[in-house]
C-alpha cells in the first residue's frame, strides 16, 4: 500500500495525521510544486507585515515528515494523473505510483484577463513566494500600492502594506468590503477602522488596465480614475487549482466532487480542501468551502478512509476568524440570507464598537457575524454544526457573557462532562 498526496498544505496534514493514527507502516508520498515544507498560507500577510519571520511560517515541526514517515517530493509539479495505471506524472516526466491518492491542490488566484498584468511588480497574494517578491519590491523602493479586491486576503494584504509604510488603495467591485462575510453595517465598522489607518477605498469599480513601461506605473480604473502606483496586488479570490485534471474522467463541477467519505467518482482517488466540492451542511448543497478548518477535516476524513477506517464528514460550512488592526471578527454560516422566514437578532453597541448579528431559521442558527465581541463564539459555531435548537436561549445569544449557564442543566453537563461524572 502506497499513499500519495498531491498538495502540501493543511488538508495534506489532516490526511497524514489520520493515516498515521491507524497505519504506521505504509509509505506516504507528498508531492508539492513549492519548495517549502508545510507552511501556512494565511500567515503570508503576517510575514509581509514583519510580524512573523520565516521560521514561524511552518505549521509543523522540522522533523514532521521524518517522524510520520513521509517522503516529501518538494519542488515537483504534478502535471497529470493516469487513473487507469494509478500513476501521478510529474513535470520532469517521472511517474509516482499510488494505491490510494489524495488530491489536495488547494486554490489558485483568480485573475480576470487584464491588460498589463505581465508588467513587473504586479503580484498575486497566495503563496510564500508572492510575499517574498512583494517584500523585495518594497525593499527596492516601492511606495504606493494598489490592491485589487477587498475580501479577506486583499484586506490582509492592504493591512500588511500599510504597516510597511506604503500608501495603499484598495479597489473593490462590490459596494462594500468583505462582502462574502459581512453585511453592509458590519462592513462599515471594518472599513472605518481600515480608513483610520490610512487605507483608501475605491468601491464599485474595478481595474481596467495596468499601465507602465516594463514596470507598473499606473492603474486605470473602470470609473476612469487613474492611480499612480508602484505595485499592484491581485487578491480577488481563489478558484480550485485543478486545471491539470480537466478533461479526465474525474468528476469536476466547481471543484472535484466528493462524497461524505471524500471519495471522488474514481476508485481509490480522494480529494480534500480548497480544490474539493463537498457537502455544506448550512447551505445543504455541494459547495467549495475554501477555509482552513474545513480543509483539515476533509483531509483527515480522506486519510482515515484511505487507510481503511470508515469515517464520514458532512458537517462542513464556512467560518472565518480574522482581524485588522484592533478590529476582530468571527463569522460563520449564512451571513446574507435571502429568504423571509428567517429571524434576525442584532445588537450594535456603538460605544464598544461591537456588533453581533445572528440568523435563525426553524429554531436553528443559520449564521452569525460577531465584530469586537468574539469571546466564546465557538459555542455558536458548534450549535450550527450540531443543528441545536436554540429557541429557549435565543434571547441570550447576543450577550457578551453568553455561556454554558444559559443552556439547560442536562445539556450543559453533557457537553462539559462528556458523559463522565464529576
Amino acid at each position: 500500500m502506497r499513499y500519495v498526496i498531491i498538495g502540501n498544505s493543511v488538508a495534506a496534514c489532516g490526511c497524514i495525521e489520520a493515516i498515521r493514527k491507524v497505519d504506521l507502516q505504509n509509505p506516504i508520498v507528498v508531492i508539492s510544486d513549492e519548495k517549502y515544507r508545510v507552511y501556512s498560507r494565511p500567515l503570508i500577510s503576517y510575514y509581509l507585515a514583519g510580524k512573523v519571520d520565516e521560521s514561524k511560517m511552518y505549521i509543523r515541526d522540522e522533523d514532521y515528515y521524518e517522524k510520520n514517515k513521509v517522503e516529501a517530493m518538494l519542488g515537483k509539479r504534478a502535471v497529470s494523473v493516469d487513473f487507469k495505471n494509478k500513476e501521478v506524472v510529474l513535470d520532469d516526466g517521472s511517474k509516482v505510483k499510488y494505491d490510494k491518492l489524495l488530491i489536495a491542490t488547494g486554490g489558485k488566484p483568480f485573475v480576470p484577463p487584464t491588460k498589463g498584468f505581465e508588467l513587473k511588480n504586479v503580484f498575486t497574494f497566495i503563496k510564500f513566494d508572492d510575499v517574498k517578491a512583494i517584500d523585495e519590491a518594497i525593499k527596492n523602493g516601492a511606495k504606493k500600492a494598489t490592491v485589487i479586491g477587498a475580501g479577506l486576503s486583499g484586506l490582509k494584504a492592504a493591512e500588511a502594506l500599510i504597516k510597511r509604510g506604503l500608501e495603499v488603495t484598495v479597489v473593490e467591485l462590490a459596494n462594500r468590503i468583505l462582502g462574502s462575510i459581512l453585511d453592509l453595517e458590519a462592513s462599515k465598522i471594518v472599513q472605518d477602522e481600515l480608513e483610520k489607518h490610512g487605507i483608501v477605498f475605491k468601491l464599485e469599480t474595478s481595474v481596467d488596465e495596468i499601465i507602465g513601461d516594463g514596470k507598473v506605473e499606473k492603474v486605470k480604473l473602470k470609473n476612469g480614475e487613474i492611480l499612480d502606483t508602484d505595485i499592484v496586488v491581485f487578491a480577488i479570490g481563489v478558484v480550485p487549482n485543478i486545471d491539470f485534471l480537466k478533461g479526465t474522467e474525474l468528476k469536476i463541477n466547481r471543484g472535484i466532487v466528493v462524497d461524505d467519505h471524500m471519495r471522488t467518482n474514481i476508485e481509490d482517488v480522494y480529494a480534500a480542501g480548497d480544490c474539493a466540492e463537498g457537502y455544506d451542511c448550512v447551505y445543504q448543497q455541494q459547495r467549495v468551502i475554501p477555509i482552513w478548518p474545513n480543509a483539515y477535516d476533509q483531509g483527515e476524513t480522506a486519510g482515515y478512509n484511505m487507510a481503511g477506517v470508515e469515517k464520514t464528514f458532512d458537517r462542513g460550512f464556512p467560518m472565518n476568524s480574522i482581524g485588522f488592526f484592533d478590529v476582530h471578527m468571527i463569522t460563520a454560516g449564512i451571513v446574507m440570507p435571502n429568504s423571509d422566514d428567517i429571524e434576525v437578532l442584532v445588537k450594535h453597541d456603538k460605544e464598544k464598537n461591537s456588533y453581533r448579528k445572528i440568523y435563525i431559521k426553524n429554531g436553528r442558527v443559520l449564521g452569525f457575524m460577531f465584530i469586537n465581541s468574539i469571546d466564546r463564539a465557538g459555542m455558536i459555531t458548534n450549535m450550527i454544526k450540531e443543528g441545536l435548537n436554540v429557541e429557549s436561549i435565543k434571547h441570550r445569544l447576543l450577550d457578551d457573557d453568553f455561556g454554558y449557564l444559559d443552556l439547560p442543566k442536562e445539556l450543559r453537563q453533557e457537553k462539559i462532562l462528556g458523559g463522565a461524572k464529576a
Partner: protein
Amino acid sequence: MAKKIFPKEEVCVGCHLCEVYCVYAHSKYKKPTVKAHELVKLYNKHKDSKPTPRILVEEKSGEWTTFALQCRHCDDAPCTKACITGAMKKLEDGRVICDEEKCVGCWSCIMACPHGAVRRGENKKAASKCDLCLELGEPVCVKNCPNEALVIKEV
C-alpha cells in the same frame, strides 16, 4: 487517554480562587502555592486589566449556580485543526497546549472551540488556555479549590 478537570457546579461557591491560583501558576513565579506579596506585584503590573486566567468561572446575575470551566482537551481538538500557525497542538499524552510564541492572535481557536474555553490572553496577543499546569505536575485550580469543586480524572 487524557486527564481532564471536571467542575462540580453543585458545590462551587464562585469564589474565583481557582482563577487567582491559575494566574499565579502561569506567571513568572510558576509555583503551586501563592505568596501574597508576589501576587500583589503580579496584579500591580496590570494597570488596565486583571491578568487573564486560563480558567473561566461562569456566573450569571440572578442565578446561584457557578462553576469553573477549563479546556476539555478534546480528543478531536477542533482548535488544533483550525489553528493557522500550528501553535495549538495536541500532545501525545492527550493534553492540548498553545505555543504562545507561535500564536499570532487570529482567534481561529475561539471560533472553533465548542466549549468557549480558549481566551484571548494578556494584551490580546496570544491565545491563553488551560495546560493542566504542565510545569507543576498537577493543576493548581484542583489542588487549591477550597470546596473540592474541581476534580481531575483520567477518562
